[in-house]
């Protein structure tokens, strides 16, 4: 276990969610969202790139961001399960982004305050504002769908039932994350709980949604234990690089 793996976990979260959101490009229900989705995806992929680059340098084995993103298999990916969940519909997509951004915003703010790693603070400074926008954009959709028509409200409730079980994993620190926390590089994930609860509570109150009790949270992503969807996602994302190693455009 090594400290660079904590950055890989973060980078994988951002790349996988960025790719998922990017899947909407060209398929969103209206032009405005067809632009908003790639905007959000590119925010996430931008953070992932810097984190991969930094992780590769800390590891010191000469792995580039492309090596880390395109040449690792499913079991080597360390993203949390939430971000790999399929898009399904707008309710699932927006709720997934809200859950993730409501965690990452306080995480990056705390990083800015306390991290001793200049590169990580650099990512935090940029990403903190991006996550604030993702909370706003996804939150407004969750409110409108949850407090919307009969069908949109039912879909929103289905999304909560499907995705809430993956949220506890956000607050768990792997052994690598513990190491990064002890070294003062990253904040303690569990400490984001109050800030997350506050954002989700506010949005859910307006959206007429209730957070369910989760007796059996789904975890395992940090150990490389993923749902079957991640393999398909990676196959698509990595196919070009694997067919044409080192391709640039």
């Amino acid at each position: 276990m090594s400290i660079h793996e904590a950055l890989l976990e973060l980078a994988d979260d951002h790349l996988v969610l960025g790719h998922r959101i990017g899947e909407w490009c060209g398929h969103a229900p209206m032009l405005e969202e067809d632009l908003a989705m790639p905007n959000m995806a590119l925010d996430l992929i931008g953070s992932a790139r810097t984190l991969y680059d930094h992780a590769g340098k800390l590891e010191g084995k000469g792995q580039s961001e492309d090596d880390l993103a395109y040449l690792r298999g499913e079991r080597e990916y360390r993203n949390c399960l939430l971000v790999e969940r399929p898009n399904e519909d707008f309710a699932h997509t927006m709720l997934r982004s809200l859950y993730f951004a409501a965690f990452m915003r306080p995480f990056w703010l705390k990083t800015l305050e306390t991290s001793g790693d200049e590169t990580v603070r650099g990512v935090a400074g940029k990403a903190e504002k991006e996550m604030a926008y993702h909370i706003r954009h996804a939150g407004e959709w969750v409110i409108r769908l949850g407090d919307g028509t009969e069908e949109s409200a039912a879909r929103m409730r289905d999304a909560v039932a499907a995705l809430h079980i993956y949220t506890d994993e956000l607050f768990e620190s792997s052994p690598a994350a513990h190491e990064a926390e002890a070294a003062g590089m990253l904040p303690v994930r569990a400490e984001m709980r109050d800030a997350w609860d506050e954002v989700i509570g506010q949005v859910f109150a307006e959206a007429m949604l209730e957070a369910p009790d989760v007796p059996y949270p789904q975890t395992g992503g940090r150990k490389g234990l993923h749902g079957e969807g991640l393999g398909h996602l990676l196959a698509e994302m990595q196919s070009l690089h694997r067919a044409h190693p080192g391709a640039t455009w």
Partner: protein
Amino acid sequence: MTTTPLWEVFIRPRNGLSHKHVGSIHAADEVMAVQAARDVYTRRGEGTSIWVVRSADIVASDPDQAGENFEPTADKIYRHPTFYEIPEDVGHM
């Protein structure tokens, strides 16, 4: 989405300049309209401020009255600032 209202978008590129009409977007309400305008029209650093207004709230001049509205100004060139010499001290106007 055919019932989603249309909004006109105005962007101020820099402090000190005015908001300028850049186009239109569809959105369910004013909050979503500002977000959609941000996502569609400020992706390349075009703006520091956004206004949106419902297209239905804009009162436009009648194209049939274009003649009586605009042609009478054609022979009043003395209204153009280029008619006057600007003192050098004034600088760029």
